[in-house]
């Protein structure tokens, strides 16, 4: 079958939908494939044109995605001149980022008696945590073990993960679920009240616990309440624009820009925890993203400037099933849970073309392959994708969509599609930064006093992350970082605090003859126009 009207070889949306609805059985093409070759040819990470070598900083000489290298080798947004007259605030621990990882770290540190400021770019909970739909992994079922959780995580990461971190992650799993329940988080349970689990792509056992298809949102609900009920000082609309350091290079706080009046505040802190999330809103390789608006990789830039080593800067996760149509929702995530529950991926020819529960990079590469080889569905404005067979899932398990995937049904309503009878068009969406700041098992980076938790850190997921491991990571490592930072902040404080590392950065950039026109951190995507550096009093349209 071939397309008549489209320029590409792909098949038009209307035509393909018609074909799909006529079909009742979907034959599977040969599903056994050479995975390495598939990734090599179709996964965006493997496109060498997007990679360049870093010229300055701790990762000098190592490969990095071009769009990230641009920010890592950019000029600072501030100057010593901006700090004259800046208010100074003292605290024990500064947490930068108000998602799940930041809250978990702040809560634990505050519990241990530290004075904590949590500064977040937007509002508490404006994060990717609330977007996490699928669930959280923990080896809690009979017959499952942390060892097999470890094996799955290590294998899915193409054996590139740091073993001690993975060990810590999987061992923390059951205790993390218990802690979340104690905080008041709800999970789906069976008729006996036992936690329901399901199997994630790339996993050997049924290990994902969840709440409907908005697990992250439920997690954030309880974390936010807990923070509200603690003595943590929460600063909204307060992105960090630079870190501070002391005389021996120990991190000593941050410069915060307050969006509601455009002023800078200097927060002097004994220890700093960065939990700023990922980098999806940089739209690597022009991919749509499932990420929250604030995911602009700020933490990577701040930590790198202070001398923190980064890793896997060329490895990202493209979630296989992002919405491809309608266009205004493009990039929105459709949970892997739907595939775990048994939904198929179908190409325009009406074939299954991949084992839907393979690790995410394989499935995403397979979808890209279908589209590039003319077996995808195309629409106007370059939309392309394959079908997610929700009607088939509903037919095999009547009522399952309503009961377990209400958010997805709602997404269908927004798209004017009844997903119980009509499939959605999906295409990989930029979802997760696999690498990040190198950390140890307490989440401490290579810079003393600087901890990194959650997506901004690297090493746990190797070059590909398993579903459900991100939510586990943010709580497990968030709590570890919070406890460790609290135990370290008993000293008398820093002797000399400043931003001398910025002069060093500028020096290095000048000596390498590099352009200083780009300023970083980005703070907001290019298509949003907040004048974040304005010193004028003014309102940015946010309440406070």
């Amino acid at each position, binding site marked *: 079958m071939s397309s008549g009207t489209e320029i590409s070889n792909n098949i038009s949306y209307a035509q393909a939908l018609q074909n799909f609805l006529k079909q009742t059985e979907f034959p599977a093409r040969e599903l056994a494939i050479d995975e390495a070759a598939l990734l090599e040819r179709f996964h965006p990470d493997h496109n060498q044109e997007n990679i360049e070598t870093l010229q300055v900083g701790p990762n000098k000489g190592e490969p990095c995605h071009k769009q990230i290298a641009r920010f890592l080798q950019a000029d600072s947004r501030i100057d010593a001149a901006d700090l004259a007259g800046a208010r100074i605030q003292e605290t024990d621990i500064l947490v930068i980022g108000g998602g799940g990882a930041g809250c978990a770290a702040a809560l634990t540190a505050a519990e241990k008696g530290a004075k904590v400021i949590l500064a977040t770019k937007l509002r508490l909970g404006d994060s990717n945590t609330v977007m996490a739909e699928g669930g959280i992994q923990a080896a809690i079922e009979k017959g499952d073990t942390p060892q097999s959780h470890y094996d799955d995580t290590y294998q899915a990461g193409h054996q590139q993960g740091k073993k001690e971190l993975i060990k810590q992650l999987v061992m923390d799993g059951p205790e993390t679920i218990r802690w979340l329940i104690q905080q008041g988080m709800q999970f789906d349970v069976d008729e006996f009240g036992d936690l329901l689990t399901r199997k994630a792509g790339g996993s050997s056992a049924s290990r994902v616990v969840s709440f409907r298809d908005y697990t992250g949102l439920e997690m954030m609900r309880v974390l936010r309440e807990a923070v509200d009920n603690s003595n943590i000082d929460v600063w909204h609309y307060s992105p960090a624009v630079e870190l501070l350091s002391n005389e021996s290079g120990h991190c000593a706080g941050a410069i915060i820009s307050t969006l509601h009046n455009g002023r800078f505040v200097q927060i002097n802190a004994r220890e700093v925890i960065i939990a700023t999330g990922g980098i999806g809103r940089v739209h690597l390789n022009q991919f749509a993203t499932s990420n929250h608006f604030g995911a602009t990789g700020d933490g990577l830039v701040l930590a790198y400037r202070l001398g923190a080593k980064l890793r896997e800067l060329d490895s990202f996760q493209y979630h296989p099933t992002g919405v491809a149509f309608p266009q205004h929702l493009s990039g929105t995530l459709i949970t892997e849970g739907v595939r775990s529950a048994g939904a198929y991926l179908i190409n325009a020819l009406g074939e299954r073309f991949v084992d839907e529960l393979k690790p995410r990079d394989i499935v995403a590469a397979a979808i890209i392959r279908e589209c590039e080889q003319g077996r995808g569905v195309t629409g106007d404005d370059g939309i392309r994708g394959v079908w997610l067979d929700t009607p088939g899932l509903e037919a095999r398990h009547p009522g399952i969509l309503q009961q377990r995937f209400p958010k997805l049904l709602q997404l269908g309503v927004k798209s004017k599609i009844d997903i119980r009878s009509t499939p959605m068009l999906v295409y990989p969406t930029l979802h997760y930064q696999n690498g990040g700041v190198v950390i140890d098992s307490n989440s401490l980076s290579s810079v003393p006093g600087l901890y990194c938790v959650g997506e901004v850190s690297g090493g746990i997921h190797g070059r590909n992350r398993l579903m459900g491991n991100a939510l586990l990571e943010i709580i497990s490592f968030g709590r570890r970082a919070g406890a460790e930072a609290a135990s370290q902040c008993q000293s008398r404080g820093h002797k000399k*605090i400043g931003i001398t590392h910025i002069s060093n950065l500028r020096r290095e950039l000048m000596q390498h003859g590099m352009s200083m026109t780009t300023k970083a951190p980005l703070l907001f995507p290019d298509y949003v126009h907040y004048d974040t550096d304005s010193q004028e009093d003014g309102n940015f349209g946010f309440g406070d």
Partner: protein
Amino acid sequence: MIDKVLLHPDSLGNSLLNWFKGYGGTGLENALSEPASIISLIEMAGLRGLGGSGYPAHLKWQAVADQTPNPDKYLICNGNEDEPGTFKDACLLSTTPHQVIEGALIAAVANQINKIVFYINPQQKNSLDNIRYGLEQWQQSELYARVEQFLIEPLSIEVMASSGHYIGGEETAAIESVEGKFPFPRGKPPFPADSGVHGCPTLVNNIETLANVPHIMRRGAKWFSELGRGESSGTKLYCLSGDVLHPGVYELPMGTPLSELIFTHGGGMLLGKKLKAVFTGGVSSTILTPKDLDVPLDFDSVHTRGSSLGTGAMIVVSEGTGIVKQVTEYVNFYAHSSCGQCPSCKTGTYYISQLLNKIDTGRASDADLDALVDLCKILPGSGLCHLLDGAIKIVDSSMRHFVDEYKNSLN
């Protein structure tokens, strides 16, 4: 071509054999053959204390040499170095330990010292390792045995990490520290030469001062005094930092003009900005402004500009930097570093830093500025050591040069 002495390639490295190959050891041999003339040679050379005071080295030495051991005599080689912008001793100890050790041995010969303590900032792991390794090699050497023969008793040499407090670099505080106590500075007199470590006569010299000694002993006083420009003697390690393109340690003739240091050796200002001020000598001194760019960087010339050379640190600040903010940071450092034994210092530095912060953030009134001016008048000289004076000096000099910036910051 600039004639490097301390950082000459022949002086570098931690192998004693190499040091001996490149004329090392000759200075000590000369000292052993004519011990009585060492101090007069140092005097003729015009060597001064390079840790910040600029006090003639031979006077300190003579005072110790005149004492009789009680029962010992101590030498403290002061490498506590903790001032902002100063990193020359770390550079010396980690790249060229042997000239420092030889200098200390010559001092022992000249003053009949039998106990030497290398007193080094604990942050400087490299320095500590290098000096320990260096000493191990010296103790195997024949020259070392000759020093012990000369002293008629075994020489005791200890390497100790200081407590890391800034105040621990003050000479009497260093003595307390060597005695195993918290580095509280002592009142003077008695001076260390009369009563230092455990009451024994004690010589405290900066690392850079000692490093110059073997070269003077080998090449003579005339050679050394001709190295400097104008009236000055020898070379100086300048620590250049702040908003310049190439910060670092530069060994230049004593008396090199400030402009040459910044623009010729330092590569000029970062981002091509205008120079606003230079904080000299770490913080225990004052501010130079663009009109002082021609000043020769030696103790006396800088002093005539109302500032002091101090350790030779030059922290360069460019246009756009808030002076009040910068000074606040320095005073915060003093407040943090005050040992707390003198009430005037403990509370004085704290109040000054609070007042400065208030001024910097636009919350202060005229009365606050007046209070600051008053404090600067009544506090100096009221502490046992010079920490409080240092804090006042920098506030005072910043107000002298940038008073408008203070006034404009008032509410």
